[in-house]
């Protein structure tokens, strides 16, 4: 196959993906604009900062989750990992008085270990990651509960310098959001440019073909799980900075919120396509809608129903889009191709 016939559908597909991110961005702007008209406080610096901080953790987790889902796997253990990392971090602050940097390191290493276990079991034993990470969700939550043992880490135990990460801003942007934006930018660049990360797409699109092409699938999938775990560890540390307190319930239910954000962000649940930027925007969109409902004085009871409806709409829209692309490719090339 010559390069130019191959390039055309690829470029077209990429431009569609880009359009998807643009689409989410437009919806976010629309939601913000409509809400701002109804409630002028919505665009206050403080309100915007709240919006960004609120979305930050799920957006951060969605980066790792995207990498895992692109390989046709899923990581359901992220919520428990956030809880564990946050509590262990806080516990070390309270009783060992460790430095902030050391605390971050511990949280991140914890997350990486969890990710490595997920990755090892999934790739070495070749068992479905959904089962493995579901099991890990329970195991980690249990370990967390044993460590917590009914205690709570409250704000008095946490150094001031650390909680500032949660609310201080730089040029009006919360530190929390800056950290996440940097991670998203780096991951976004890496996912476009590095060979290893393109391999993730190949593995998810067609595992057999990827294996025949000599891609070390096991190693790549393992790495994706480690990255997801690592980011969950980091998110745990940031969770503590944001809330300044944690008990045994930190991060409960995050796993499905993250998968929801990733799906809204245009990542195919069966792997092979999607971007981390899209996923992070998906997280921002879901949080923006939550906040918009609050600002519009719609009862907060509506939050979940709207989020659920939106999620279904996003999935249906994806399907429609991919059918269109498939049809477009078919008529353009005169042959059947799977998208």
């Amino acid at each position, binding site marked *: 196959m010559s390069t130019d016939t191959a390039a055309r559908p690829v470029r077209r597909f990429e431009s569609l993906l880009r359009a998807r991110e643009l689409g989410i961005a437009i919806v976010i702007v629309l939601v913000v604009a409509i809400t701002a008209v109804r409630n002028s406080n919505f665009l206050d610096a403080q309100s915007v900062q709240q919006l960004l901080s609120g979305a930050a953790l799920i957006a951060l987790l969605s980066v790792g989750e995207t990498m895992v889902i692109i390989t046709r796997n*899923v990581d*359901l253990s992220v919520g428990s990992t956030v809880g564990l990392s946050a509590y262990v971090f806080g516990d070390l602050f309270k009783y060992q008085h460790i430095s902030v940097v050391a605390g971050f390191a511990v949280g991140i290493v914890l997350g990486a270990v969890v990710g490595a276990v997920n990755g090892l*079991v999934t790739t*070495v*034993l*070749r*068992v*479905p990651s*959904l*089962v*493995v990470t*579901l*099991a*890990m*969700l*329970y*195991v*980690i*939550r*249990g*370990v*967390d*509960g*044993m460590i*917590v*043992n009914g205690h709570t880490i409250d704000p008095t135990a946490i150094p001031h310098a650390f909680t500032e990460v949660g609310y201080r801003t730089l040029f009006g942007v919360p530190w929390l959001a800056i950290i996440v934006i940097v991670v998203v930018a780096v991951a976004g660049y890496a996912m476009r440019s590095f060979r290893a990360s393109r391999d993730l797409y190949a593995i998810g699109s067609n595992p057999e073909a990827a294996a025949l092409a000599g891609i070390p699938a096991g190693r790549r999938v393992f790495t994706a799980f480690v990255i997801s775990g690592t980011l969950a560890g980091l998110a745990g540390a940031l969770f503590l900075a944001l809330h300044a307190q944690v008990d*045994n319930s930190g991060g*409960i*239910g995050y796993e*499905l919120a993250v*998968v*929801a954000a990733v*799906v809204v962000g245009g990542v195919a*649940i*069966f792997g092979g396509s999607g971007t981390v930027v899209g996923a992070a925007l998906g997280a921002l969109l879901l949080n923006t809608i939550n906040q918009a409902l609050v600002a519009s004085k719609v*009862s907060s*009871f*509506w*939050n*979940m*129903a*709207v*989020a*659920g*409806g939106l*999620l*279904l709409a996003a*999935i*249906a829209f994806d*399907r429609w889009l991919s059918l269109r692309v498939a049809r477009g490719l078919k008529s353009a090339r005169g042959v059947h191709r799977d998208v």
Partner: protein
Amino acid sequence: MTSDMATRARHSPGDEGTDTAGRRARWRSAARWEVGLVVVLIGVLVFGAGESSTFVDPTTFFYLGINIGYIAIMALPMTLIVMTGEIDLSVASMLGLSGSVLGVLWHHGWSFVPAVVVALLVGALGGALNGILVAKAGLPSIAVTIGTLTLFRGLAEILLGSLTVPAAGDRQFPAALTNIGVAPIPGTQLSYTTVIFLVLAVVCGVVLHATPLGRAMHAVGLQPEAAQFSGIRVRRIKFWLYVVSGVVCAFAGMLLTLQNSSVSYSAGTGLELNVVAIVLFGGVSIFGGRGTVVGVVLSVAIFGALQMALTQLNVQPEIQNIITGALLLISVVVPNGGEAIGRLRERIKRK
């Protein structure tokens, strides 16, 4: 779940088509998994009886049914759906939604039976929504049902808000029915939920393992395209399974409401993953096509008995979480471990 589990069971007598050797292998490995579960169950019972003086007691059995009955009921339609290679993560939200529908109608002075009928209808409609999106539109069920998980719980929240029904000034639910939460079926020590679960399990087992429809479900899970070409109505089967799941989960919602004599919108939050864990531990393959209702019933018994034993021993719920996770891990590691070791050995030999 491959290898050993891949050669696992079809219990149906309609197996004549396959060669005897294959069938024997299948029976053997099927037996192995369910036998393993029986051994684990006996181990749990012996452990419970040995460690806790109150474990061997009729009331233990009653409370076991109260604790796990409504979860176990949701595991049955989940088993059938996972058999066809799909999943339904909206089960616990449907339980909460139907309870909330019942609650809000009761709060507004409806009598009990019409309220139940409406709640079950809502279950059917919710299931049909899942079914349309998964079976007709062909969308991935894991994504769709995370969406409806959020949607159903959201609707429950809109209906009840912060209200707990019966609220102050409301009538109580009919005492004859809320009795299922405090008294066993007369003359036995079985809770009503236990018996309902067992009856539904028999129905599911017969359908899955002894009818053409059950054979079709296996086929859909193993090879959807081949099933389609052999004339099985793949979409229709999936659609109706989701409807059944919606109705059964709505019914579980009624039972939980009556058992607790009250309902709030958050009833059963997060139980979907427990249900999935029970089904998978019962030996049903997440990829579909393999598994038995017997395995799922044994899995329910193991989780229920373990929970009772550990609670009586005052073991922290945290450790129960760890054990749940560990059992689930073991359920995939054991059947695949041997194969993985073989692969490693081969790799070392090649080097």
